[in-house]
Every structure is written in C-alpha cells, then in structure tokens.
C-alpha cells in the first residue's frame, strides 16, 4: 500500500509538469487552432535559462523560476511574431502551413541550443537540501512537494485570471467565436500575443521545475515532453483549461503506474493508448466541448 501511494505521488509530480505544458498548448489552440509544436522547445529553453541563472548569477530557486518565465515569455512572443503571425495574414495559408512552420521553429530552436550549449545532458546544482516526508508509508521528497505545489499555484492563478479579469474574458470570447469577439472590440492580435505569452511563461516554469526535479537538462528534452503534453491537452479536451490539467495528471499517473506494474518497457505507449481509447469514446476529449457543426 505504501508503495502504491508512493507511486501515486511520483505520478502526480510527473503529471504536474505535463499539465503545465499542456496548458500552453490548450490555450493557444483554443484561440487560433494551432498546434504549437515549438512549445516543447520553449519548455527546454526555460530549463536552460534557469540553469544559466543559477550557474552564472547564483540565483536562488524563485529567481530562477521567474527569470526563466520572463525569458520564455519573450521567446514565445518572438516565435509567434516570426513564424505564425505572417501565416495568419496570408490568404493561402491553411492550418497545415502553420503546422509545418511550427515544426520548422521546433527544429530551429533545438538545434540552436545544441550549438549554444552542446548536446550533453547537464545537471542542476543543488538548490536546496532534500528532505523526505513520510505520509502513510510513502516517502515524499521536498522536490515533489515543490513541483506539485508550484504547478498547482500557477494553474489556479491561470484559472482565476481567465475567469475574473477583463483580458481573461476577452480570451475566452476569442476562443468561442473569433469574429464575434473582434466585432465586440477585442483586439485579436493583442489577445493572441497575450495568450502566447502566458502559455510560454508556463512552459518556461515547467522547464525549470523539470530541470530541478529530474536534474537533467538537454537540448532535445522538449520533444517527448511536448508530444505527451500535447496528448494530455487533447485527452482533456483541447481548448479546455481544466481539461489540460486533468489530461496532464492522468498521463503522468498512467506512466508511473505502468512502471509500477512492471510494464515500464511500454510506458511511452501508455500515454497514447489512453488518449486513443478516450477519444474513441469521447471524441472531443474528457472535458472538451462537443463541437456541433452547423451546415
């Protein structure tokens, strides 16, 4: 039983990181129906920024997270401006063109990091002394508490923002009906930029947290994490913020439970198998809105 609880905690920690990235995917998708493939790389840049801050400026934990978020926000905005906005303007561009552009951005960013840093995996210096708390037989590390705690904070913050601020309302309006929102005076470009900014900030935070938790930062770390986070966003219902959280946690738990059940060889397949199964039953995802197409 203790072991089971322990694995649950492991799963929640991992899931929290997926959830943070998934939030970015789902928000951007909700507004402009774009699968931002470069999110994994923004997450990776967040991790490296945190590492850089800690190594060169002896930043402490909180500074590292804030600093990374600041940097990735800017990075996300740049990517949006360079790779996506021109396509939105163009008459000829369909969703697939934007997708390919996103893929190009993803390849560009990961190669850039290899050139800047080299392909080796680097560890985070120890930022704080670990302590283990025993809860019902399971031993939970301070790291895990940090991950779950910070993620929860950010997610709640986002939810409050979207629900109670004017900008948040504008974003929601935009995701429901872009034309109507524009007619109501919502500055579309600005809203999209803000959405990208928030999503990128979250991805950056996730990156630093992942770097600290796993103690491993490497230029290609964004690929798999990005894929799984995207699966998580779809699982929860893409466009739905609570859905992204649920999806991320579910996938993290599924992976760890798979390992616990001695099926770790198949662990990567779990995330996707669950996704496909859920989509078969509920094609718009767990918490997604059923899209009724009117003819």
């Amino acid at each position: 039983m203790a072991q089971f609880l322990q694995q649950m905690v492991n799963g929640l920690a991992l899931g929290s990181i997926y959830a943070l990235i998934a939030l970015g995917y789902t928000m951007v998708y909700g507004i402009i129906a774009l699968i931002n493939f470069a999110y994994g790389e923004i997450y990776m840049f967040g991790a490296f920024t945190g590492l850089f801050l800690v190594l060169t400026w002896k930043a402490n934990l909180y500074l590292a997270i804030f600093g990374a978020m600041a940097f990735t926000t800017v990075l996300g905005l740049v990517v949006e401006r360079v790779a996506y906005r021109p396509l939105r303007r163009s008459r000829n561009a369909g969703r697939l063109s934007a997708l390919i552009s996103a893929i190009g951005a993803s390849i560009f960013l990961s190669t850039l990091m290899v050139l800047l840093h080299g392909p080796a995996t680097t560890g985070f210096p120890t930022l704080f002394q670990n302590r283990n708390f025993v809860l019902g037989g399971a031993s939970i590390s301070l790291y895990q508490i940090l991950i779950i705690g910070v993620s929860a904070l950010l997610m709640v913050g986002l939810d409050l923002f979207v629900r109670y601020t004017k900008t948040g309302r504008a974003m929601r309006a935009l995701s429901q009906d872009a034309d109507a929102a524009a007619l109501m005076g919502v500055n579309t470009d600005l809203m999209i930029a803000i959405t990208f900014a928030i999503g990128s900030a979250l991805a950056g935070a996730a990156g630093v947290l992942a770097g600290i938790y796993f103690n491993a930062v490497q230029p290609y770390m964004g690929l798999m994490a990005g894929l799984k986070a995207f699966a998580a966003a779809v699982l929860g219902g893409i466009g739905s913020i609570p859905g992204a959280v649920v999806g991320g946690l579910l996938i993290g738990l599924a992976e760890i439970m798979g390992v616990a059940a001695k099926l770790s060889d198949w662990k990567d397949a779990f995330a996707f198998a669950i996704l496909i199964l859920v989509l078969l039953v509920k094609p718009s995802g767990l918490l997604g809105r059923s899209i009724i197409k009117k003819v």
Partner: protein
Amino acid sequence: MSTVDNSVSGAVPGAPAPRRQPAWLELWPVQALLFLALLVAVWAVTEALNLVIPAYQGQILLFTGINVIITLGLNLITGVTGQLSLGHAAFMAIGAYAAAICTVSLHLPFALALLLGGLVAALFGVVLGFPTLRLSGDYLAIATLGFAEIVRVVNTNLKITNGAIGYYGIQKRVDLPLVAMLAVAAVAAMAWLENSRNGRAMRSVREDEIAATASGVNTTFYKIQAFAVGAFFAGVGGGLYAHTTTFIQPTDFGFLKSVEQLSMVVLGGMGSIAGTVLGTIVLTAAPELLRFMSNYRMLVYGATLIVLMIFRPGGLLGGVDLRDAVRRALMLGRSRTVRTSVGGDGQ
C-alpha cells in the same frame, strides 16, 4: 489552402473547340502497353544512369525514390482526403519489418516480401482508419501520432523484431533502376486514382465532409480506403528501405521521420502529386546539399521550413495547375482547362 483542378472541357463560351485525344488512345490495352513501355524506358535510362553516376549521388537518388513512394501515400491521406496524419512513418516501419521478416526468416522471394509488407501495412491502415472516423482535424492528428508511437514501442519490445537491437541480416536487394521503376509506377497509380471516382470522392471529403455526406458520398468508406492505400505505399517504401540499409531499428521510424514526410508533402503543395515529388526531392537532397555547413545544417533546415511556409504557404507547387504551366511554358496554345481555386482550410 486547397486548389481544386476542375477540368471543364468546352465550358468557356467563345473558346476554340477543345482538342480531344484520338479515340484509340483511350482504349485501356493501349494505355497499358504505353505504360509498360514507359516503365521499360525508365529502367533503361536508369540502368545507363547507374553506370555513369557516382555511387554517392546514386545513393541519394535511391533514397529519394523510396521517399517519393512513401510520401505519395501520405499525400493521398492528408493532401487529397484531408485527413491529417502525423504517424505515417509507422506504416513505413510495419512494411519494413514485415518485408524483412519475410525474406530473412521465411525466405520468401523479394517481390512477394515487398507486396506482403505493403499489404500488412495496408491492414494496419484500415485498423487505424476505423477508430478515426469520429475524430476530426487535430484530434485525428494526435491519434495518428499516438498510433505511431505505439507501433514504435511495440517494435522495441517484440521478440520477432529483435527489439531495440534491431533487425539485421537483410540482404541488399534494391538498386536504382528498381526504385525508379517503382517510383514511376507509384506516380502513375496515384494519378490514376486521383482522377478516378474514388479520387474525386476523397477530395470531396477534404473539401466539405458534411456536404459530401449529404450528397450521398460514403465518406467512411473513402477515408478508410485512403488510409489503406496510403499505408500500402508506405509499406512498400519501407520494405525497399529495409533492403537498402540491410539493418533496421525501431528508432529509424520515429516521430521525426513522420514529420519529415509530412514536410515533404506540405512543402511541395498538398494534394498535388508533382508537388509531393518535388517536395520530396528537395527535402531528401537538402541535408546532403547542406553538408558543407554541417554544424548549421539543421538550423538552416528549420529556418527554411518557416520561410517557405511564410512566402509560399500553399507549398511550392500549391495552386499551380501543372499542365497549364507546362503548356504555357511551351506555348502550346490555350489550355482547355478552367482552373477554379477554393480558398480556406485544407480541412
């Protein structure tokens, strides 16, 4: 970003009477014979080419040919039928392993192994096609992605595929003339399919699925057919690949490979066969041509994708009616085709 080529003969008032092909050319035995003649010509040309071309360039051409076969399949699924597939490499993997197991363990003749590889892949295409019926757009995309990852994990863990260590001992049975002939045959097959009733039905699914269903098109059937045929092509390409590198591992067919293949299709212009071929040639040759800037190679590759999409979002040959363009270039007189372009999402 879809451009439908609607050939409406004689529909423009005041235009000169449309030139028709001579009647005997329309007979199918004649067409079959001409096609065979074409294949023989291709074989002869590439045999000669093989002797002259340095091995390095020949190798690149060979891989280009294999990729063409595979991406034509993806073009059918994504470009023509509008079903976004992010897991095409999985079909390539299935075909590769199936063909390899056929020749190495079951000692079947190579041609049969290739065919079986394609058929097994097609079977999985159907398997993937069914559940995706209810999914649309990006949900479908992620489901195909998931499928490809599952295939990769399964390949890494099965005994019969030798897992992560990889499947080796495959004989090298592929050379440039063979690939050239198969590539030409693939192009021909695709062209034939696209201009047939099936092809038009598939395009209607892409254009507006609801309207198509309302018009009585069995969209289910055609979606699955697209997946099956597309997978078949990828499977055959995979079999060729296995018998070229003589050794395959599950990591050869990962997500990045699927992305590469999708890029080739979109770059060239989705739904367009010539576009797919062009996109494949460009992106297969590009890493080789960019070798001189080895460290920055992938940087340039990524940036190129972005730039190309911004300046030509429809793809290199998107929106271009090839016959029109060739005719105009050769100044062969007014074209009898009327081109209509339908804007909007390729969805």
